[in-house]
């Protein structure tokens, strides 16, 4: 059996398992989804009110609507909760049996992400289509080129967010407060990744700082590719940034894993 076929079989089994388990938990998953959309919905509500007097930094009401709906979809496609799982596994001793298997635990995590995202993104897409029927403001043009570029941006963002999440989860090897660091990262990304407002609305200094970090590439950039706000040179810039930061976080993950496992083997779990 070739190596590729072996990996395909492994991922097939892992994704299938994850999909079937998610099926059992679809009610819970729907509630998480509901929670996931309330934050952008509330933000949209506020910006909608503010933009009632006229466009804000080039964003009219319809622009805000499109932005936040695109955000809901892209967020579901890129968000990674592995940090919380890893922290729980490490603290509750659930890492042991996974380490005794000839399969790196990260693969299980990736497969679960794929299954979960396929399911929830599908749900968001359905809701978006229904809303778009009644509300023209949220409609997006159907250009295949644009959707292909979006798919690429989303894939890169999802990969990067996965490595960010997994690496911060590995901090649990060193501290019981890994969740606090995750909260800190989440709090900062509220602003710098565009969850509260399009980056164009941030004070220039803040937006400038964001441009030097990975946050815009987590969410804001793929959203702007989808809505069409990013085009031309900005596209090239954005993709380059995504690739760069993905590389940085993969390196960070590898460092954290090798160091963390050594420490785990020394102090146990």
């Amino acid at each position, binding site marked *: 059996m070739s190596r590729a076929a072996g990996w395909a079989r492994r991922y097939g089994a892992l994704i299938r398992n994850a999909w079937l388990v998610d099926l*059992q*938990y679809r*009610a*819970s998953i729907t*509630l*998480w989804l*509901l*929670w996931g959309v*309330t*934050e952008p919905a*509330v933000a949209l*509500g*506020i*910006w*909608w*009110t*503010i933009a009632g*007097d006229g466009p*804000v*930094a080039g964003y009219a009401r319809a622009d805000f609507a499109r932005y936040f709906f695109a955000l809901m979809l892209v967020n579901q496609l890129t968000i990674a909760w592995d940090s919380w799982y890893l922290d729980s596994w490490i603290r509750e001793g659930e890492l042991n049996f996974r380490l005794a298997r000839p399969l790196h635990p990260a693969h299980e995590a990736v497969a679960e992400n794929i299954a979960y995202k396929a399911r929830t993104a599908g749900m968001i897409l359905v809701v978006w289509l229904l809303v778009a029927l009644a509300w023209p403001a949220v409609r997006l043009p159907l250009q295949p080129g644009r959707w292909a570029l979006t798919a690429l941006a989303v894939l890169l963002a999802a990969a990067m967010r996965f490595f960010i999440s997994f690496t911060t989860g590995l901090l649990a090897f060193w501290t019981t*407060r890994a969740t*606090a660091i995750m*909260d*800190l990262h989440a*709090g900062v990304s*509220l*602003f710098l990744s565009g969850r*509260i*407002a399009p980056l164009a*609305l*941030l*004070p220039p200094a803040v937006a400038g700082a964001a441009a030097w970090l990975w946050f815009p590439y987590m969410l804001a950039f793929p959203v702007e590719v989808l809505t069409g706000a990013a085009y031309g040179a900005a596209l090239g810039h954005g993709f380059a940034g995504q690739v760069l930061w993905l590389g940085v976080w993969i390196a960070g993950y590898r460092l954290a894993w090798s160091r963390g496992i050594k420490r785990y083997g020394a102090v146990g779990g």
Partner: protein
Amino acid sequence: MRSAELQWKIEPWGKPRGTKPVMTLRIPHSAFRILGALWRLNLAEELQYRANFAASVLGTLFWIGTALLTLALFFGHTTRLGGWDYWEVVVLLGVFNALTGVVEAVLRPGIGRLAAEVRSGSLDLVLAKPVDAQGFVSFRRLDIWRLADIPLGLGLAGYALARLGRVPSVAQLAAFAVALVAAAVVVYTIWVVLMSLAFWFVSVENLSVLFDAVYEGARYPVSAYPTALRFVFVYLIPIAWTTTIPASALTGRLGPGIALAAAAVAGLAFALARLVWRMALKRYTGASG
């Protein structure tokens, strides 16, 4: 048994005195003893964990900070939000934080775990005890450190008031106090009603997430939302009564008389919570009608 409990009877409206009460609330003195014992145990447990307190306070300060920054972002592009000034909204934010303290310290660790208890059967253990199940489930655990959110939130509200240059009159302060307690009762009701769903949807483990979704809208004054949502937030999912009303009472946007309305809403809410709980419990234990 009379002297060993607190009693509160809700008389039916408009009927002559002495008519059978609609509902009688009895809190035996032993309840306070039991709660005291539980909370002392909690305190001893919590003190074991190094730096939990510092972590909790830092966490709250961090989220208050992000909320203030979010507001600053909004107000960077407008001067009024739903007719409210920046510092008026900060007062509301302070109230929101104080209530969050109540939620995180008392409600989430207690009634927030109801779904898990129903599923695991631990609820049966509670029902077998000689205590009121609703009271026990609601208040048996405290996340002590989160109580710090209450003074932090109120402090923020006070600071914002100072920045507004307003000194609330005694009547306003009293109205605020009443409205705040009423707000806590309304929040409690929302929790009870949402968590009671656990009796019908036993397999859903994260029902408490439903509260977070619903409550997210309480961060901002109700007037900042479109009219349709405003109706929902005042009459249907009454989160307007949790933050907007108390903040309005404190800043003087609404006269002190609003406290009466708030108290009435709280009373209704509490009765509703009790009713829903008993219906849910009847269904759970299989009792009829």
